[in-house]
């Protein structure tokens, strides 16, 4: 176990280094302005983004880059909507050309009902992307065996789901997340499933290196406030993990000494 102290407790992802352990999405907000305000409140230094066709019939439509400056905030392009390795490589090559980032989020989804990752295709796509020179952060099932395979292949971060994407159900399988954390030498980031601040804290207390979320902030009644809550939740969970919690006991143990009573 590394001996962390707060001042240099940074998150290293591939060739990048971050002070914030929170990564937020840019989907589902009312508009890009609200998204930008939530980003400021969250303290996140990286946002996930999707790659899509420009609307050629309406070039005046607002663009994400006009609200979240890619020079100040790192864009993490995702492969949402890709169902094969080849599609993922094609999409991320274009993303690299548009923005220049080498760090990418690979997600190969399957059934829209649960949006579980297709792990067979995820492994294949990860291999193609790594051979193409990308630093791959990979969305995956909370299966320690697949997580290990992805790490061995050279993925720079393992990102198991806490619960289905957009469900807000919180970390469903703490045992698996802990197993993945314990075995991994690269950062583990819970991606998907966080619903409220305590969920993010739980993920961090399990020893995760970061949390990635979108809907928990975007679909909150007040996304800006929730973004701030998530910032504190991730810090609280991280510090709690590093501090090391007290052991649980079966019975009470008085905090004031019983000796010397008058």
């Amino acid at each position: 176990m590394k001996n962390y102290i707060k001042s240099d407790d940074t998150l290293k992802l591939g060739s990048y280094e971050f002070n914030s352990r929170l990564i937020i999405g840019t989907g589902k907000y009312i508009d890009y302005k609200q998204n930008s305000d939530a980003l400021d409140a969250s303290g996140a230094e990286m946002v996930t983004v999707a790659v899509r066709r420009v609307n050629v019939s309406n070039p005046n439509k607002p663009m994400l880059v006009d609200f979240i400056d890619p020079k100040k905030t790192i864009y993490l392009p995702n492969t949402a909507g890709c169902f094969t390795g080849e599609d993922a490589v094609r999409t991320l090559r274009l993303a690299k050309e548009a923005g220049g980032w080498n760090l990418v989020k690979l997600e190969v989804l399957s059934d829209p009902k649960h949006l579980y990752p297709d792990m067979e295709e995820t492994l294949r796509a990860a291999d193609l992307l790594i051979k193409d020179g990308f630093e791959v952060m990979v969305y995956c099932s909370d299966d320690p065996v697949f997580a290990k395979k992805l790490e061995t292949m050279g993925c720079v971060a393992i990102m198991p789901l806490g619960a289905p994407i957009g469900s807000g159900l919180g970390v469903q399988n703490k045992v698996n997340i802990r197993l993945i954390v314990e075995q991994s030498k690269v950062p583990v980031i819970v991606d998907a499933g966080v619903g409220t601040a305590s969920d993010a804290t739980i993920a961090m207390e399990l020893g995760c290196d970061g949390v990635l979320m979108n809907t928990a902030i975007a679909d909150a009644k007040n996304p800006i406030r929730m973004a701030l809550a998530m910032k504190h939740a991730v810090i609280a969970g991280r510090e709690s993990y590093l501090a090391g919690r007290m052991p649980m006991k079966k019975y009470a143990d008085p905090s004031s000494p019983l000796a010397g009573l008058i």
Partner: protein
Amino acid sequence: MYLTVNGKIYDNLIENMTMQDLLDYLKLPANKIAIERNREIVSKSSFNTAILNDGDIIEIIHFIGGG
């Protein structure tokens, strides 16, 4: 000349258009997008010199909100 841009057919375009001419025609800012022609990436540095050919299939992408 005709092109397919993001799935839409554009015909009656002038001959020997460059990629930058196409962007100007579509009123799209070169610094915010990336382009693929017939599945090959066209680098930004070649927008002014890349001459479009009849029937080229062009994809122009940008970043949008996502998770």
